[in-house]
């Protein structure tokens, strides 16, 4: 029997976003953005000047935080830190690749689908 247990606090958990500026602006308009008392943000604007190390650090920080439930990462950004995403095996926070502004969604690049394909033996 499935037991539905609510495991979040009364306020709920946050969503983190790693994407380009326009996508981040859109999600912030939707009410996702949060800056806590320590000035820590739950988003990272990635542009051409953002280094891979910065993206990796931000992703690791988001995945280590206990108040983040879902990490939204655009596919273009995800392709730069594929190895870090592949190493992430915790169910919470859940990592979700979203389409980039410049490139359409490519199922063959999605980490989740790659893993399912590998395990199901569709190679």
């Amino acid at each position, binding site marked *: 029997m*499935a037991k539905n*247990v609510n495991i979040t606090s009364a306020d709920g958990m946050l969503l983190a976003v790693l994407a380009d500026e326009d996508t981040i602006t*859109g999600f912030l308009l939707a009410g996702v953005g949060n*800056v806590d008392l320590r000035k820590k943000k*739950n988003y990272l604007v990635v542009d051409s000047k953002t280094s891979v190390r910065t993206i990796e650090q931000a992703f690791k920080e988001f995945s280590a935080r206990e108040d983040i439930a*879902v990490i939204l990462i655009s596919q273009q950004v995800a392709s730069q830190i594929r190895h870090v995403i592949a190493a992430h095996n915790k169910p919470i926070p859940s990592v979700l690749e979203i389409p980039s502004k410049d490139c359409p*969604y490519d199922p063959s690049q999605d980490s989740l689908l790659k893993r399912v394909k590998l395990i199901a033996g569709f190679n």
Partner: protein
Amino acid sequence: MAAPKVTSSATELDAAEREFVETMDALQEYLQLQARLQDQLKKGLMNLARAKYSMGPIGQAQYDMEMQASVRVAIKSGDENGGSSGGGGGAVEGANAPCSGTRYSFEIRKSPNAATARRPSPPPAAAAATMDRAKAAAEATPAAAAAVAEARGSKNVADEVAAADSVVRLSDLDLLDDDDGSGEDGGLSGEGGKEEEDEKELKVANEFLRRMRLLLGSDGGDGGGDGGSEGGDVAEVEWIRRVRRGGRNGGGGSDPLHWFGVLVPPALKDAQSGFSAALETCLLLANTAQRMGPLYHATSSAGAAEEGAAT
């Protein structure tokens, strides 16, 4: 002896097959949701581009650095294997045990009280010039008035404020007289809601005048008789300064639209609604992705059952 082992492995294989089929269904749904998300993001970004065309650059410079999330996610764990995933602190257990077979479902939760939780904040760097000028004028007025009061004698300004106050009180009395039922106008006395609004406005105006007097008293030093306690005056002055500095962030609530000005183009509102819809699709995607998770466990348990049958 061998028959029970074959039965149990067949049962496990059946269960694995069912989970596999369910996972493939979830995979198909995942791809459909991704296509939907792409359309929604495309529309949202197009509206954002239209808004940029109307009002100029929209970007990080306008973000409120003390923003609070008004949309959050509630996680529910549904354990399909009969074990308990715990409540309250169960999130940690689930997160550290990826092989437990626990599925999580995400629900969106919008908080209407984000505005009350907001700290008073300074306006963003790229605040509208008109708002800043208006605020500067408002701030300059009591200072100028205080300076004039010092030059001429504070009584004049205090008298003017008192006169304004008396005017407000007189109009208040007028309204009360109307309440007693002059009835000639008909429209005013008949509409209780409008009178309440007028009373509220008068209360706000009275409050404002009181605070202005306090300001004058604190700035002028000898102004009027309303110096009161210094601690209270300082707190009042600080509150007024915060409200003035807060501008649209302090008084406008948690809507991020207010970061971009008082009058925003309709395209920006459309972009906001588009991205809100995209956010809901993202959560559906996250739920569907969770349903694909058991594939790991199904294949591993089926593999173990086959090995057991072979020996």
